[in-house]
């Protein structure tokens, strides 16, 4: 890969005796949608945490646009241009939908929007993209799960990220909502935002990702295009297990 927009090298995270992420090298190409998959406990969310600054790596570096962002605070990294959504939605429950998104617009967005009006305009733009414009004034807590997931995305988009990390945005959604969210992901990519998504729904990953990285027990075992990766025996046995007496 010639010029990765985001690159992690030798990323390692230990919690006490447990190694959650173990020396992972990962490079994300500008403009791609990259799927990050692996069975439960593979370390995918931890890897996201290390990249987005929510956790500090025990070892390894993260570079973004050629500059190191290793160990910087989450808000710094967000302002630099890497946004993240949460696996379990975390709306600001007492705020309206548009106010939620305005937080992203106010703080993650460079240059700073002009005042409240500017932030609101920016927020409305993202709500439009995410199909939530008609719910802008509703309290955030009144949304359905699908709505909450899209709110997470709108909020992250309002920070005008170059890279968007989506952590299981499809989990818990019904098929209609899933399709709607996948369309949204494609739209965002078309706007020029690079996307990395942690996902369990492999059918969806297959449909939307141009490349897949597979993590098993904290290590990267394979990466490549979806069809190759998903038929790789190592991946299959990671998912289906190996027969004991095969």
């Amino acid at each position, binding site marked *: 890969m010639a010029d990765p927009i985001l690159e992690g090298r030798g990323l390692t995270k230990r919690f006490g005796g447990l190694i959650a992420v173990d020396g992972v090298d990962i490079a994300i190409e500008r403009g791609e949608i990259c799927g990050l998959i692996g069975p439960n406990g593979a370390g995918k969310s931890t890897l996201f945490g290390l990249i987005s600054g929510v956790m500090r790596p025990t070892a390894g570096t993260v570079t973004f646009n050629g500059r190191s962002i290793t160990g910087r605070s989450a808000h710094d990294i967000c302002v630099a241009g890497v946004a993240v959504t949460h696996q379990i939605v975390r709306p600001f*429950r007492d705020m309206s939908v548009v106010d939620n998104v305005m*937080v992203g617009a106010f703080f993650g967005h460079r240059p700073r929007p002009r005042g409240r009006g500017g932030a609101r305009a920016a927020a409305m733009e993202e709500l439009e993209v995410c199909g939530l414009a008609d719910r802008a004034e509703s309290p955030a807590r009144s949304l359905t799960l699908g709505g909450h997931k899209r709110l997470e995305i709108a909020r992250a988009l309002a920070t005008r990220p170059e890279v968007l990390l989506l952590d299981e945005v499809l989990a818990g959604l019904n098929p209609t909502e899933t399709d709607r969210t996948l369309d949204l992901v494609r739209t965002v990519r078309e706007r020029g935002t690079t996307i990395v998504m942690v996902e369990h729904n492999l059918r969806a990953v297959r449909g939307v990702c141009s490349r897949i990285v597979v993590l098993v027990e904290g290590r990267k075992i394979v990466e490549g295009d979806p069809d190759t990766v998903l038929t790789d025996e190592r991946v299959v046995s990671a998912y289906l297990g190996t027969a004991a007496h095969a």
Partner: protein
Amino acid sequence: MARNGAFAAIAIAALVAVPFVAPHAEYALDVLFLIFLYGAMATAWNLVGGFAGQVSFGHAAFLGIGAYATAIMTQNGISLWISVPVSALLAGAYSLVIGIPAFRLRGPYFSIATIGIGEATRLIARNWSSLTGGVSGLTLSSAPPLLLQYFAALALLVAAVGLAAWIRASRFGYALAAVRQDTDAAETLGVATTVAKTQALFLSACILGVAGSVYALHYLFVSPDSVFGFSTSIALVIMPIIGGLGTVTGPLIGAVIYTFIREQLAATLANVDLLAFGVLLIAIVVFEPRGILGIADRIRRMRKPPAVTVPDG
């Protein structure tokens, strides 16, 4: 928004007019003065405890520093034009000294630490006799005229509430609201949460510093147990919670109720005040955490037909 502004303007005009309409109502002015002072103090606490959701039980420290700074400077003949802003800044500086370590703690841990900080500050003031006059405190010789005190407190209140109203609608207010509701989510949206909390604490401390100046000039006597006392910190917590945590007018309503119960009822009925506050606090926390404003909101919604009912949970 505009209507809010208009109402505020009418209210301010009315309050400015009171001394001229009723020049002999010294006692009413005195009560209003206290309401203004408490209102400003509660509003200041609310910036941190309500807006940013960091409940502090040690806010009396800032009032005390402001009061002492003003008392000491006034005794040394320094003009109020200098001593009041310096008092505010000293209180603000102290807030940075304690805020930076304390904000490493979250939620209840922060609250417990503030109890310790507040009490430690009081004990230091008691023992640092050369500066604070120790437990005997300091006496000032002459008070500014009541009218001046009245307007100073009114100005402070208007400034504090104005600041709160402005913050609430501003970028900074969004940061604080985000911090209150989900600090981690705020962080990942680019909010420098520790900085925001520290800024809120600084502003809060500065307002309390000025309130301390007004206090010192009104009471003409400052002692560690009066200005740094735990009961002052408790009052600062109670008023905004009664009125409505994290709102602009809530602390003000709380201050009115507090002043009436404390200064009026309690002078003749023994010990009912803190008991009443305790019961109010329990009731509010359990049944309506949004305080009086929340109750008012409920009543209003009960009276009006439910326009938009929001599906919840």
